[in-house]
């Protein structure tokens, strides 16, 4: 026999962006709990609205499965004394298992006899077990930020106000810090009056619907989507759907009704982002575009309620948007009364970070790094002029009225105002691009100047923060350094450029060193930054589908040039599953193992006398120089092919030569040869960490 279980946690409005992760957590926690407690079920689903988190388990068993488990006790030797009486160890075991002496039996394990006990536990009624499991679910959920209220012993995203746990048609009764369980849930905050009684779990969704709550988020999502599309179609347009915004709205409303509003067409003169930003970011409205993709003077908002008094809601929202657009329009006109150069002056009063100075200081440092990168990348003189101009102007928009009000518009306004004051298009574009990528999956700059500027800005932030000891720890990363390092990595990879990280770091770190604000010595700071990049690079490579061991093999052997490391990883990944490559791993591992004992890679040819060692010496001598050329030219495929030719001489060497002989001279010489071979290999990768998946 099975029943359905409903567990509704009623709360004050939980932040919309917490919900997707919370629902997944509740699912995972419940799944693990049911498994650990031997409770069978058919299906687990979780649902959420702003005011409720719902766990719904279909076909949950009424009885826990019985437990039968063999528990191993002490060895027979330890369990009984010479007279056959139980020892302290055995008595302790019995006590721990709540067992009698007669309950245990003896069984052999790997040649040793042990005392065993067959633990058996009758399954309890699930209804009883749930009385402790459900409160645990409640207190196991973790949120990005949680709070205390009303002397409760646990924290939650917002105050929990009611709990409805129903198994079939039975109420599961427990009390969590004074929050009483009951059959009574609440409907929509204003459309539903009083409490709603849930007689059995299966009627929950219909009862809520009658109370103006659509509990299933997917139903709300498709409802909102359809409503928005219809409204847009009615005015001959299309809704500019944004899945992130849609998801947020799904968890802001329990009973969605979309409505369309308008604003004065004159605001369409403003740059498109200036109109869209207050709509989307501030008001959670969807913009509407016409058939040609041009913004229309309409917006769609989703009300949490029914279609009554829609006109009032519409007018209110129109008024709010109008005020916002009027502000934006005012800022747009005001901002243009001054040149960007004037705003740059104002950056001298805008703090970047207390110790690191003003944003103006930052732009100067960005320019210095950019100049270095211009040389490295062979930028033309004209290009360099534009680059430095863009570096000078790139942060100017931060002190404009528009960006102060709508910070999402940073870079976008900078570009807009630059174009309006007649700056070179390349300069304007670089101002916008230097913020790219802004989030995971965002595009990287398309222009070289934008790329250089973006790297320079991000390196300045990373090096500056490391310089004064505010690097990320755990979940703390206030300057988003991880995101910035990933951004730098992505730009380098997208542009396929070779760039020495330590030189770049040294360049970006220099101004802080000159200013004498380094917290710690420069070399260890540099090392920390490289290590920081190494970790980010590893993550980027994993995200791109490369295997851990190949990544480690390459970056353990050396890490300074991101693109170069990437090429090695790419090449090595191609080889990984070829037999010829797998076959050499064992040989090279033997080389590495012994090479670690070598004092130096020095070789005295005259000390080699055996045939196999001479052959290995010659084989190595033949490929070494060419191998090095290949590595210098980054022809890794060719280099690996050369390396493989050493397999036979290496194997022969180990077959017939004893390396660790008494004679120190001979021993060191043989070790020296192996060390030289290892030194060669390591120029590509440390093959000893490559994992062989294939069982041969």
């Amino acid at each position, binding site marked *: 026999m099975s029943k359905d279980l409903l567990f509704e946690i009623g709360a004050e409005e939980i932040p919309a*962006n917490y919900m997707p992760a919370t629902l997944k957590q509740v699912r995972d926690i419940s799944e693990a709990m049911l498994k650990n407690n031997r409770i069978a079920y058919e299906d687990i689903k979780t649902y959420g609205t702003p005011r409720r988190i719902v766990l719904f388990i279909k076909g949950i068993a009424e009885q826990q499965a019985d437990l039968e488990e063999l528990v191993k006790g002490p060895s027979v030797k330890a369990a009984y004394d010479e007279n056959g009486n139980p020892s302290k160890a055995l008595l302790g075991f019995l006590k721990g298992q709540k067992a009698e002496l007669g309950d245990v039996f003896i069984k052999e394990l790997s040649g040793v006899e042990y005392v065993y006990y067959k633990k058996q536990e009758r399954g309890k009624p699930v209804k009883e077990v749930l009385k402790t499991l459900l409160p645990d679910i409640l207190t196991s959920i973790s949120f990005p930020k949680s709070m205390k209220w*009303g002397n409760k012993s646990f924290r939650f995203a917002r105050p929990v106000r009611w709990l409805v746990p129903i198994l079939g048609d039975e109420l599961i009764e427990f009390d969590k810090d004074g929050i009483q369980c009951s059959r009574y849930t609440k409907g929509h905050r204003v459309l539903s009056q009083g409490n709603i009684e849930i007689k059995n779990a299966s009627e929950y969704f219909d009862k809520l619907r009658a109370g103006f709550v659509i509990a299933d988020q997917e139903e709300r999502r498709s409802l909102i989507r359809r409503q928005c599309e219809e409204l847009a179609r009615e005015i001959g347009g299309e809704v500019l759907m944004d899945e992130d915004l849609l998801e947020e709205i799904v968890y802001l409303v329990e009973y969605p009704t979309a409505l369309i509003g308008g604003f004065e067409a004159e605001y369409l003169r403003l740059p498109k982002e200036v109109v869209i930003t207050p709509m989307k970011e501030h008001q959670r409205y969807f913009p509407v575009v016409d058939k040609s993709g041009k913004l229309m003077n309409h917006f769609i908002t989703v009300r949490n309620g029914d279609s009554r008094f829609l006109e009032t809601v519409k007018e*209110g929202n129109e008024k709010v948007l109008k005020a916002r657009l009027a502000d934006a329009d005012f800022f747009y006109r005001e901002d243009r009364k001054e040149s960007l150069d004037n705003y740059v002056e104002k950056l001298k009063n805008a*703090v970047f970070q207390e110790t690191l100075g003003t944003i103006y200081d930052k732009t100067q440092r960005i320019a210095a790094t950019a100049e270095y990168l211009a040389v490295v990348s062979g930028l033309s003189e004209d290009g360099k002029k534009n680059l430095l101009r863009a570096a000078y102007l790139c942060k100017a928009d931060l002190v404009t009225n528009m960006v102060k009000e709508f910070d999402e518009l940073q870079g976008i306004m900078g570009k807009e105002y630059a174009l309006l004051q007649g700056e070179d298009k390349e300069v304007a574009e670089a101002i916008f691009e230097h913020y790219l990528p802004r989030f995971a999956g965002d595009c990287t700059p398309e222009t070289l100047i934008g790329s250089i500027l973006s790297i320079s800005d991000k390196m300045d932030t990373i090096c500056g923060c490391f310089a004064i000891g505010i690097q990320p720890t755990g979940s703390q990363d206030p300057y988003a350094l991880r995101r910035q390092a990933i951004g730098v990595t992505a730009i380098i990879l997208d542009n396929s450029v070779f760039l020495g990280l330590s030189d770049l770091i040294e360049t970006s770190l220099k101004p802080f060193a000159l200013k004498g604000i380094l917290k710690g010595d420069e070399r260890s700071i540099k090392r920390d930054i490289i290590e920081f990049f190494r970790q980010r690079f590893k993550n980027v490579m994993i995200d791109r589908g490369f295997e851990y061991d190949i990544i480690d093999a390459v970056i353990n052997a050396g890490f300074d040039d991101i693109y170069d490391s990437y090429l090695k990883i790419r090449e090595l990944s191609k080889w990984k599953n070829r037999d010829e490559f797998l076959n050499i791993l064992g040989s090279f591992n033997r080389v590495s193992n012994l090479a670690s004992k070598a004092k130096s890679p020095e070789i005295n040819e005259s000390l080699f006398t055996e045939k196999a060692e001479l052959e290995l010496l010659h084989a190595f001598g033949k490929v070494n120089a060419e191998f090095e050329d290949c590595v210098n030219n980054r022809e890794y495929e060719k280099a690996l092919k050369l390396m493989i030719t050493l397999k036979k001489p290496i194997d022969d060497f180990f077959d017939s030569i004893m390396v660790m002989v008494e004679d120190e001279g001979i021993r060191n010489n043989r070790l020296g040869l192996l060390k030289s071979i290892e030194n060669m290999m390591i120029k590509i990768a440390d093959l000893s960490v490559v994992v062989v998946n294939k069982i041969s």
Partner: protein
Amino acid sequence: MTFQEIILALQKYWADQHCIIAQPYDVEKGAGTMSPYTFLKALGPEPWRIAYVEPSRRPADARYGENPNRLYQHHQFQVILKPSPDNVQDLYLGSLKALGIDPVRHDIRFVEDNWEAPTLGAWGLGWEVWLDGMEITQYTYFQQVGSIDCQLESAELTYGLERIAMYIQEINNVFDIEWVSGIKYGDVFRTAEFEHSKYSFEEADTGLLFTLFDQYEREAKRLLDKGIILPAYDYVLKCSHTFNILDARKAISVTERTGFIGRVRNLARLVAQGYLKQREEMGYPLLNKVVFGGEENE
């Protein structure tokens, strides 16, 4: 509804919910939270229910009386419910009804917004309440005040009175708000707005203000050393306001700024500690006051 009717309606409503109706506290401050009726009373185990209007001065927001939405001084209606009752959201919605705003006719949403005041060492979780897309109230459950964990959490409701009035009266310029029939907000405040703007941005004697800041800070510390808490807190408020004027006047450099904020926060923390100690020594006299929902001992 006139501006003054809005205030009266809120006072009546919250008085009916067993709040003390207090008058504004007479030291300059940037927000209703800074009143000792909130800042200090939020600390410790004693219950507290209060509602009051708080004129709030923000020199940097001054606009010479020319901006339709921004003011040197605006008015907050502040409610503190400690401990926060289980039905606090319903109570809040009830207050909107008292203002003639029927939730059924509008779209009311609680949108996540977490409040933080670094100078007070205070933070909490909550929402901004939206009425048809407009933010009308800040709603916070205090978690920490004066860098001290709240022992008994309060719910704080802060209504933006001018915004609500503009909504109810359907006007777009704050100075057009009808205070009472025939008298507009501008009639009462426009000159003050202009003069305080002029003072904050142009006339404030920065040398004098820096000296005053130091003296206020010294006086606060001296009083704290003697265990005289409430007058000490007045001087903390004065420090804060003095800092705000200097900041608006752009007299505080980028590097000095954090230092000044830290000095005020430090004083706020000392006051909070002193206040808690004082209440403990007094045996927490408000613990069982029946008016706040407790049980009278006698």
